[in-house]
């Protein structure tokens, strides 16, 4: 399970404070009955199977099953989990009451994520494929870390290619109705007629480069621009697309 976590960057010499978004994988621990001793016994057995894996592991407490449960002592639950060397960082799917006691106990609240209610996208935030995995070329679209996904054939209408954890380079054209998704940059050496989402998981530094811009939509880190809002003089031209603040900028390539 992944959940966005905000992380403070190291203080710089200029005393500027930087908050940057980051995505980390967190384990969710389903709490079914916080008072049941059997739960802690079972937990201990589980941890004993892979003590290194669990030691000081940050965990999210999933309270979905406790929606109708009587109130319980959150601080006590956290203390007992810490005894098992787990580090509870947040609760998810809790009631208002439970969320309040989590805050009082010094941990945070995570909204969205799997299992809970679907997160409603903000006005300027696009969410693609949260349900179901992208199909078509997606099976091949998982290059090893540090590699780039290379596509040599035209991407046809209705096809979707997702470069997970990597950039994508396409040597052909992207048809209208096709979609490219990348956690990093997108390079298209043909004409980009479909949709392109770079920095899909929130990397605002990701860019889109194409030899000829005729895209239906471009988006960087969830901020988008549709064809109608693209400058006419750049249509059909080689361009790059990047994020400046919350503004999607399209510039001719030098």
């Amino acid at each position, binding site marked *: 399970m992944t959940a966005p976590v905000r992380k403070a960057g190291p203080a710089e010499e200029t005393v500027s404070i930087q908050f940057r978004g980051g995505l980390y994988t967190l384990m969710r621990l389903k709490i079914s009955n916080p008072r049941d001793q059997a739960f802690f016994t079972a937990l201990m057995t589980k941890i004993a199977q892979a003590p290194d894996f669990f030691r000081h592991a940050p965990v999210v407490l999933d309270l979905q099953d406790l929606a109708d449960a009587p109130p319980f002592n959150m601080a006590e639950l956290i203390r007992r989990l810490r005894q098992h060397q787990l580090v509870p960082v947040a609760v998810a799917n809790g009631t208002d009451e439970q969320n309040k006691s989590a805050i009082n106990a010094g941990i945070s609240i995570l909204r969205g994520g799997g299992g809970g209610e*679907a997160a*409603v996208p903000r006005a300027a935030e*696009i969410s*693609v494929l*949260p*349900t179901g995995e992208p199909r078509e070329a997606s099976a091949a679209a998982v290059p090893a870390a540090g590699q780039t996904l290379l596509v040599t054939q035209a991407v046809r*209408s209705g096809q979707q290619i997702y470069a997970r954890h990597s950039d994508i380079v396409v040597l052909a054209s992207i048809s209208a*109705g096709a979609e490219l998704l990348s956690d990093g940059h997108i390079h298209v050496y043909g004409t980009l007629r479909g949709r392109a989402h770079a920095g899909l998981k929130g990397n605002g530094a990701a860019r889109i480069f194409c030899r000829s811009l005729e895209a239906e939509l471009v988006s960087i880190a969830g901020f988008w621009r549709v064809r109608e809002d693209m400058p006419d003089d750049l249509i059909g031209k080689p361009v790059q697309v990047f994020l400046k603040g919350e503004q999607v900028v399209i510039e001719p390539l030098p």
Partner: protein
Amino acid sequence: MGKVIVMTSGKGGVGKTTTSAAFSAGLASRGHKTVVIDFDVGLRNLDLIMGCERRVVFDFVHVINGDARLNQALIRDKRLEHLYILPTSQTRDKDALTREGVERVLTELREQFEYIICDSPAGIERGALMALYFADEAIIVTNPEVSSVRDSDRILGVLQSRSRRAEEGLDPVREHLLLSRYDPERVERGEMMKVDDVLEILAIPLLGVIPESRSVLKASNVGTPVILDPQSAAGDAYRDAVGRFLGESLPFRFMRPERRGLFQRFLRRSA
């Protein structure tokens, strides 16, 4: 409470999307708040015919999946203030249309709109079934040829057995026949079925006869519903059909070949 109207045919290429675009624009231009939904997931075209393909961000499938709110996905037409378009996804398939999801979206739309036009995909599979399931009225788009008429007959059977109104034993879906791509000259030469022959087989009330017209292809290519073309005979015929749908009694036009003098015949030959 809005009315759900499905544009369906069974057969492909008969003019469902053209009719959906024309009809929704016709209703909206008469002041009725109308939305037109593309049910052809994976083969979307309505946005092109409506000329709003450059403004699509979210679509019907995003709303069904709860990834976007309805109002984020609705596109307001630039020509008609009462007209909205709900485009669909090109990268998903018909399995994205769940009955619960479609019902939720339609229920929400019924509160906001007078008319909800569902542009059905061809076929009698999931996409077409989802488009017609919640319908209150159905406009069967048929071409004057035997295969189209047979497919329309099939879809009428589906409407009468597998729609929500049929399943729940409510009043049946109101059916209307719209005969499109009608060419009176070819009918006269015996190359095309007559209106009466089609009516005899399908036995549902005739809403309109749309003449075969070059203006339809032109309208599709420029993204303007043909009903907005004041010079087009097809546009006139669609305007009449919308009028009849709203209860007006209008004579049928464009069912006989135009009378032409020798001079016009000569012009046509040389054209």
